[in-house]
């Protein structure tokens, strides 16, 4: 197993509804770590993951299966899941307005994205701090054979007007098994 190597870093500095990090997955590595810090949004929303294929297209079909278990400091816990949906929902937790002490952080791992003969899998844990601490632990499977070369991070509105992603840092690291 190789050392963890920084492959790409993306800093969000303008408001977008989603953004793509292209060509972060290559034949050089088998496993990837995605560290997302303080990905702040204009309103409360979910932060989701989709993949980009080798043609450069975001895959938005219902080819994703995911499950996320959430814990809060309050009295509630939640489990979400879907076997045929258009992304890994809440893979990076929740986006919060970039004010005050609001913050977000997540640590995610993607397995075998560049191997065309196996599905791409992911695991993630994410924390978001607004009025309350929300923690989520996710698994995801992307049920398409073929090379995945990049990611899209998008948001899903929870209530109110359509949010934008305004700031944050995404760092992608690679590991080589052999």
């Amino acid at each position, binding site marked *: 197993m190789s050392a963890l190597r920084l492959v790409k870093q993306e800093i969000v500095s303008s408001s977008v509804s989603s953004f793509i990090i292209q060509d972060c997955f290559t034949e*050089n590595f088998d496993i990837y770590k995605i560290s997302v810090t303080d990905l702040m949004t204009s309103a409360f929303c979910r932060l989701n993951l989709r993949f980009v294929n080798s043609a450069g297209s975001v895959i938005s079909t219902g080819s994703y299966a995911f499950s996320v278990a959430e*814990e809060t400091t309050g009295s509630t816990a939640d489990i979400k899941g879907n076997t045929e949906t258009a992304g890994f929902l809440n893979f990076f937790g929740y986006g919060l307005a970039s004010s005050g002490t609001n913050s977000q952080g997540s*640590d995610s791992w993607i397995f075998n994205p560049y191997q065309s003969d196996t599905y791409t899998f992911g695991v993630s*844990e994410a*924390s978001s701090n607004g009025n*309350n*601490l*929300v923690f989520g632990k996710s698994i995801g499977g992307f049920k398409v054979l073929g090379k995945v070369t990049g990611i899209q991070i998008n948001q899903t509105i929870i209530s109110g007007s359509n949010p934008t992603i305004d700031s944050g840092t995404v760092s992608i690291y690679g590991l080589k098994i052999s």
Partner: protein
Amino acid sequence: MPYIGTQPNDVKQNTGLYTPSEILELTKDGHWGGSLELIKEQTYSGSVNQVIFDEIQEENYNVHLLIFEKVQGTADNVQTDNIQLFENGVLETSNVYQVAQRNHRATGSFTNVSRSTASNQWNVGVGGGNQANEKLSGYMYMYNAGNSSKFTFASMHSSMWSSDPHMWHKYGGLCLPQASKVDGIKIYVSSGNYSSYKFRLFGVKKI
């Protein structure tokens, strides 16, 4: 600069030789060397009831990784993995820590949650035992320690052979909801001393 053996992981093509200018370029781009940078390692060498990381380089990293290995105390069924943080050199011991965690036991017969908005500490395990192999290992990612305008928070996952004795795991989120600069970490056992531990603190490289 020659290197020995295969090195297939470089993000830039190379012919097997690194020139000084290439090293400088890779270093500047952040691609030279590993991306988990060891800040400090502390290994059991005698009876103590606490371990302190007091130079966590919070100015250099916004994400820290703390790895726990083979953690065990001398007393039975005690928390061996309590954490309190230093803010500007002052240890926060008040009931201000938040936790949102879930525990599972291998028997399948038990699961519970650890939830609080008024805890005096974080912890990353359940009651540890003092018999052979009743030890804990796990990790914790901590965010924004050096950012005095943000809360410091963390996610963690651990597994342990507890005092039951059964296999447990625990995962969840942790937060110190105070806008402050965190510059130190105290790990301590609730009762007695440590009989085993290895703690390693890393900074996650950023450009």
